[in-house]
């Protein structure tokens, strides 16, 4: 009964990838420079403004922070908020390996 009903609507549990692999929407890829990123440079958990602001929760609080590119939509909020400008938005096309 319950499952039948839930399948008649768009119904989902919170968890990674419930809206599909949204990383494919990305045009610009955020890339963290560990030489400038505060936690990476200091080797201690600190700053994490990127983690705090990421609307999709795809940035970890690690050393250095890691971005889950399967789901990062490339909105660029992390790059905008990073106090040391450690995150660059790089054209996604530049990561495509050309077939030779």
């Amino acid at each position, binding site marked *: 009964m319950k499952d039948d009903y*839930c*399948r*008649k609507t*768009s*119904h989902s549990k919170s968890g990674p990838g*419930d809206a*599909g692999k949204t990383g494919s929407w990305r045009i610009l890829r955020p890339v963290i420079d560990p030489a400038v990123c505060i936690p990476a440079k200091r080797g201690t958990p600190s700053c994490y403004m990127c983690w705090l602001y990421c609307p999709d929760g795809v940035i970890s609080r690690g050393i250095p922070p890691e971005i889950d590119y399967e789901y990062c939509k490339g909105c660029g909020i992390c790059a905008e908020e990073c106090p040391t400008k450690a995150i660059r938005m790089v054209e996604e096309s530049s990561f495509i390996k050309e077939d030779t």
Partner: protein
Amino acid sequence: MQIIESGNVAAALGVKLSRAQVIAAYPITPQTPLTEKLSEIIEAGDMTAEYIPVESEHSALAICIAASSAGARSFTATSANGLLYMHEQLHWASGARLPIVMCVVNRGVGAPWTVWNDHQDSMSQRDTGWIQIYANDHQQIIDSVIKAFALAEEVMIPVMVCYDGYLLSHTYMPFDIPEATLTDSFLPPYRPAYCLDPDEPANLNTVTLSDVRTDINGVKAHGYMEIRHLLQQDMLASMDAIERVDSRFKNIFGRGGSPFIESYRSDDARFIAVGIGSLSYHLRDVVDDLRDEGISVGVMSMQLYRPFPYQAVAKALKDCQGVIVFEKALSYGYQGPVCSDIKSALYHYVGPEGSRPFVLNYILGLGGREILTKDLYEGLKLSCTTKPSSPDKPRWIGLKL
């Protein structure tokens, strides 16, 4: 118990007997006395429900959507521009498959402003995925409200119970109030198959992509098109549920038996007049006069407009010579919506000589323009006695250009 009261009070008493748990509404003429009555009943402690006053109709239905998602039996009511202000939320309620019941006290739509009756408001919302039931008198109003909750909760599709502003909402008529013990057995408390549960968080009505997706459990989840297809399927299948609910009600209360259409002197009729709401009873008087003159004519009222009971309509009309549809609504640039739908239902039924009944359309009573019995009489008589010309163009009754 028999009482004499207004149509709005009949609706309010139906909501009370249905034990609605959340009522959110914004007052609008001619619906206002209905919501006033409900707030009085709740304030007096005669009904256990949350009455939530809101700043708009959009919010009224949004609250019903939230309350219904949380598993509460929810009710709202509106008219005319208030219904149109809900338009976006109407689609939401049906797409979210919430068994909300709403009374639409039919009124013409501005501009220009009118507070008087026609059917343009609810007719223009026919494609929102709500079931639409039309009541012809006060008894049908109270009975339909109670049946609407049972139906909505069985098929998980919201239901509009529509009735004429002023002509029914503000006139007084005798009607029977069903016994509460009987309505309780007919309509037990709402037990949703699923509702919001803080212990089991979920996203409801989330964005769908253009294709199906795999959910976090690795199970294929429906996309937008699958969900909409299921609504259409369930909407069509709800006609069986409507019959079941109606016959269950009839077994207990002894009223009902014609949930799709109500026919009057139609069995042998060569011509059938079609009307909705109080107009269909007005047409009965005209048909009686025409029958006295030997004209073979009957009346069919549409009790259910969405889902469209196309089989019942075709069965009732296919063998007659002419169908004359009297409408208080118009799809501007074409004709009355009921007329188009009736023609569509008759399309597949071709008589032995390749003939179908002609279908004529009269537009009347817009914005409360008085419908004179003599005008109905003349229009119907003319349609039954002369060969129709340009049948696709609706004729107007009572127009004073």
